[in-house]
Structure formats: structure tokens, C-alpha cells
């Protein structure tokens, strides 16, 4: 019998995930400041250079970094399979994605083609440097089947997103010609947001929701079929859309969206049925993310401005949910690693800070409040332009609070690690 899953030494060194988590909020701050600087013009259309820049700051700089960092940490635990060469993979992915997000934002926002090319290539390489070793772990894995299926589907979606993204960069730079550029952009966005982000959220939810809040498990058919069905839906929809069958494309996108709404509603029902009634700040992030997901689908169905769908998905789901997860992941990882150092050093005279001592729950609550305010203002700004600047400022502020909290955890870790080494 394989007992690999019991080993405590599979987790990567803490500085690998931590560097992803500590860099990511900088990009959400940058997106907020960009909004505050450009104001309402940014939200006029999704084709505004500022909107494209903010989208990639959040999607690659914030979400991409947090998701890759968290997966490098999670894969060995949930899949029982370590990621090969995790230090090299982590270092490369982190550097390349950071440069990629900055380059793409400069290129798309400032019309600088050299930055666009450099950003596109490094973001593409960064994701590929991550996805191949992760795929090796995912193929070898034998853990929770529902989570694994969703993670595998998300990895496929990431590869397609990157390929389409690189193709779009090439088109913008004037190399190949595409018959319908805007439909290829739609497909890229659908693969990125529904495929990579959406399927990853499903995989993570199946794994952590019952664990964090003691909820019932997701229904078995949903665990088994939802992620593969959504992947097929996205593939069918984007092919139909690109070849110009608008009706079929809309139908398939609608069906896929409905699948995500079904997931969000199930999640809200499961949270209601949780056996751990305590209202912790991360729970509010789950609520607001799932409601944002439902509202994004409804807005799309009723042909609301695409920027509203973008704000709901990128800020409501994309910025909020990972922040909530970091409130648990970062202090727990820190406690976990300090515990092991303590055990190795035999220093039981020193009491290690628990999670509440590492990250203040009150400040986490303040972060959630600021996030909800920013989300509300930015949704409103699609209709009332004057709300755009304050919305951007509050988004930057809530992400700055997140950053300061995470830095606090890292500093406490360092302090105790030094004391344990004495």
C-alpha cells in the first residue's frame, strides 16, 4: 500500500509559495491605481487600452501568481505527487509571470509593442514552465478524483489560453492576419476566465469547502462530470464562435455559463448547510465571489455592458476569492513550517504563534469590507462614471491591506525561525 500521502516532507520550502503570495497583491494595487488614474474612460469599453492593461494585471499578475503558487503548494498534498524540481519551477514561473504581467500591462495600456512582445513571451513561458511539471504531478496523482479532474481540465484550459494569447500578440504586432480578431479575443477571454480560472475554482472548492467549513461534499455527479462537461462546453462554444456560427456559439456559452451558475448556487447551498457556523471573513469572500459569478452570468444573458461582466468576474471573483484563501493558506503554512522547525530544533520552551497571532482576524474583516466597497463602487461605475476613481482607489487600498497583512505573517515567520535556530 502506498503511504506517500502521509509524508510531511512533500511540501515545498515555504519561500516558494510565499514569494508568489507576497508579489501578487502589488498587481491588484497597480490595477486599482490605474483605474483611479484613468477614471471612467477605462470602463467605457473592454477595448480601452487601460481596461486591457488592468485585466492582465489582475488575471496574470494577481490571479496567475496566486493560483500557481497555491498549486505548487497544494499538488503534493492533494495529489500525493510532488511537482518535479519545485524550486527551479517556482523561481522561473514567479519571475516570468511577474515580468509578463508588467510587460503586457505596459504593452496593452501604453501601446508599446516591444513591451507587449516581451510581456506576452514571458507570461507564456512562465505559464508553460509551470504547467508542464504540474501536468507531470497531475498525471501521476491519485487523490480526490473530483478535484483532480477539475485541475487537469484547468491545466488544459491554461495551455489553450496561452496559445491564443500568444497568437493575439502576434496579430497585434502585425504578423499573421485573422479574419475576425474580436472573436479570437472572446475565445481567449473565455478560455482564460471560464476555463483556467473557473475550473480551478471548482477544483479548489471541491477540496477545501468541506474541509474549511465542514460542509457536506459536493454531489457526486457534480464532482465527476461538471469540470469535463464545462471544458467541452467552452471548447465547443469557442470553436463555433470563431468559425462564425454565432447562434450555436451563444447557445453553448450560455449552457456553459449555466453550468457555472449551478456550481455557484450549489456552493452557496453547501455553505448554508455547513456545520461550522462561525462567520469568518473568508466565508464572506466565498459568498461575494459566488454571487458575483451568478450576477456575471445574468448580466451576460441580458446583454449588460461587457465591462460589468468583467468587473464582476475579475474583481468580484478573481480578486476577492484568492484574498480569502490567502487569509487561511498563509498563516496555516507559516504555523506548519514553524512547527516543523520547532520539532527539529527540540525547542519546546518557545511557544509558536497560532494562526490568529499571525494574521489579525479584525484586519482581515476590514479587508473584506474594503473589498466589498470597491466591488460595489466599480459595478456602479459602469453606469455612474463618477464612481470609477473612488472604486479604483478603494480596490488599491483593500489590496494594500492584504499585502500588509501577508508581509506581517512573513515577518513573524522570519523572527521565530531565527529564534528557533539559536
Amino acid at each position, binding site marked *: *500500500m502506498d*503511504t506517500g*500521502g*502521509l*509524508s*510531511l516532507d512533500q511540501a515545498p520550502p515555504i519561500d516558494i509559495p510565499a514569494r508568489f503570495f507576497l508579489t501578487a497583491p502589488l498587481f491588484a494595487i497597480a490595477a486599482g491605481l490605474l483605474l483611479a488614474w484613468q477614471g471612467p474612460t477605462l470602463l467605457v469599453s473592454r477595448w480601452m487600452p487601460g481596461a486591457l492593461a488592468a485585466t492582465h494585471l489582475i488575471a496574470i499578475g494577481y490571479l496567475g501568481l496566486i493560483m500557481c503558487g497555491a498549486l505548487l503548494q497544494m499538488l503534493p*498534498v492533494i495529489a500525493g505527487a510532488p511537482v518535479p524540481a519545485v524550486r527551479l519551477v517556482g523561481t522561473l514561473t514567479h519571475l516570468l509571470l511577474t515580468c509578463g504581467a508588467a510587460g503586457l500591462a505596459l504593452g496593452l495600456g501604453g501601446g508599446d509593442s516591444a513591451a507587449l512582445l516581451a510581456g506576452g513571451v514571458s507570461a507564456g513561458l512562465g505559464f508553460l514552465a509551470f504547467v508542464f511539471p504540474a501536468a507531470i504531478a497531475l498525471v501521476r496523482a491519485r487523490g480526490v478524483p473530483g478535484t483532480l479532474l477539475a485541475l487537469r481540465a484547468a491545466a488544459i484550459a491554461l495551455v489553450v489560453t496561452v496559445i491564443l494569447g500568444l497568437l493575439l500578440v502576434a496579430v497585434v504586432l502585425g504578423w499573421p492576419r485573422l479574419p475576425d480578431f474580436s472573436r479570437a479575443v472572446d475565445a481567449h477571454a473565455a478560455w482564460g476566465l471560464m476555463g483556467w480560472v473557473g475550473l480551478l475554482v471548482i477544483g479548489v472548492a471541491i477540496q477545501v469547502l468541506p*474541509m*474549511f467549513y*465542514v460542509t457536506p461534499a459536493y454531489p457526486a455527479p457534480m464532482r465527476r462530470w461538471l469540470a469535463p462537461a464545462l471544458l467541452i462546453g467552452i471548447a465547443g462554444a469557442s470553436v463555433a464562435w470563431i468559425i462564425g456560427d454565432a447562434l450555436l456559439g451563444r447557445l453553448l456559452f450560455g449552457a456553459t455559463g449555466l453550468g457555472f451558475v449551478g456550481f455557484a448556487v450549489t456552493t452557496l447551498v453547501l455553505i448554508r448547510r455547513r*456545520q*461550522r*457556523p*462561525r462567520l*469568518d471573513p473568508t466565508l464572506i469572500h466565498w459568498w461575494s465571489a459566488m454571487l458575483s459569478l451568478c450576477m456575471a452570468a445574468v448580466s451576460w444573458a441580458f446583454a449588460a455592458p461587457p465591462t460589468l461582466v468583467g468587473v464582476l468576474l475579475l474583481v468580484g471573483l478573481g480578486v476577492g476569492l484568492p484574498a480569502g484563501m490567502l487569509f*487561511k493558506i498563509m*498563516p*496555516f503554512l507559516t*504555523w506548519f513550517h514553524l*512547527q516543523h522547525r520547532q*520539532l527539529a530544533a527540540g525547542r*519546546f520552551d518557545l*511557544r509558536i504563534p*497560532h*494562526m*490568529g*497571532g*499571525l494574521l*489579525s*482576524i*479584525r484586519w482581515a474583516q476590514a479587508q473584506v469590507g474594503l473589498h466589498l466597497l470597491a466591488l460595489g463602487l466599480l459595478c456602479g461605475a459602469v453606469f455612474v462614471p463618477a464612481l470609477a476613481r473612488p472604486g479604483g482607489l478603494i480596490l488599491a487600498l483593500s489590496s494594500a491591506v492584504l499585502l500588509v497583512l501577508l508581509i506581517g505573517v512573513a515577518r513573524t515567520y522570519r523572527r521565530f525561525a531565527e529564534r528557533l535556530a539559536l
Partner: protein
Amino acid sequence: MTDSIATFMTDDHQRCDHLLAACEQAVSGGDWTRLAEQAKDFSNALLGHFDMEEQVLFPELVAVSPWASGPTGMMTMEHGQMRSLVEELEDAVGTQDADACLGILETLHLVIQQHNSKEEGILYPMAEENLGDQTPDILSRLQAA
């Protein structure tokens, strides 16, 4: 009563989960007398569960399959981590420090969950497989423990 070791032990995990959640509720309610009782119930249940494993289940398992001593040793070490968090919880309840209680309970909750998923996913099935014919005897000793 169940006739499966895995089910019996998993049910006991869930009992501990509920008692931990009850402690969190009591902290939020601000009733310190009630919290002290809840914390006592929780720590008795949790430490009792560890005793069942360390005194009955693990030794029996290692006796029939000596290579299980690695995983059971790992689990016993994690019990040690949780025992020291339970001690911290008792101190925090004593000093009526609500924030510390919540932080310690949160830490305990996550440690317990990842510990339980390893036991329920690997160790208990291993015990079921290897201790087949002794199950009734072990179950009655676990219930008596």
C-alpha cells in the same frame, strides 16, 4: 453500533468537529462559563480519540503489519502537535482571551482536518484490510477505551 473500524473512527472524528464548532460558537457568544465547559468536552473527546488510536488501534495494526509503524508514528507525532494546541486553548480560555481562542481553534481545525483526511483516506482503510478477523474484538476495546 457499527461493525467497521473505519466508520467507527470516522464518526468519532465528526463528533470532535462538532464539539470544536460548538467552542467557536461559545466564544462568539461571549459566555465564558459555557466556553470552559465546551472546551473541556472538546478536549476530552479529542484526547480520548488519540488514546484509542495510540493505545489500541495503532499497536494492533503494527503487530500484524510492521511496516505500518512509519505512518502510525507520523500520526502520533501530529497528535503531539494537537495536544499542545489543546493546552494553549485551555490557557486562553483561562485568561478569557477571545481572539486567542478563535485563532487557536482555527489552527486546530485545519490541523485536525488535514490529519483526519490522511487517517480516513489511508490509515483506516489499511486497518480494515489488515485487521479483518479481529474487528469485533478491536471495536469492543475501542468503545471501552
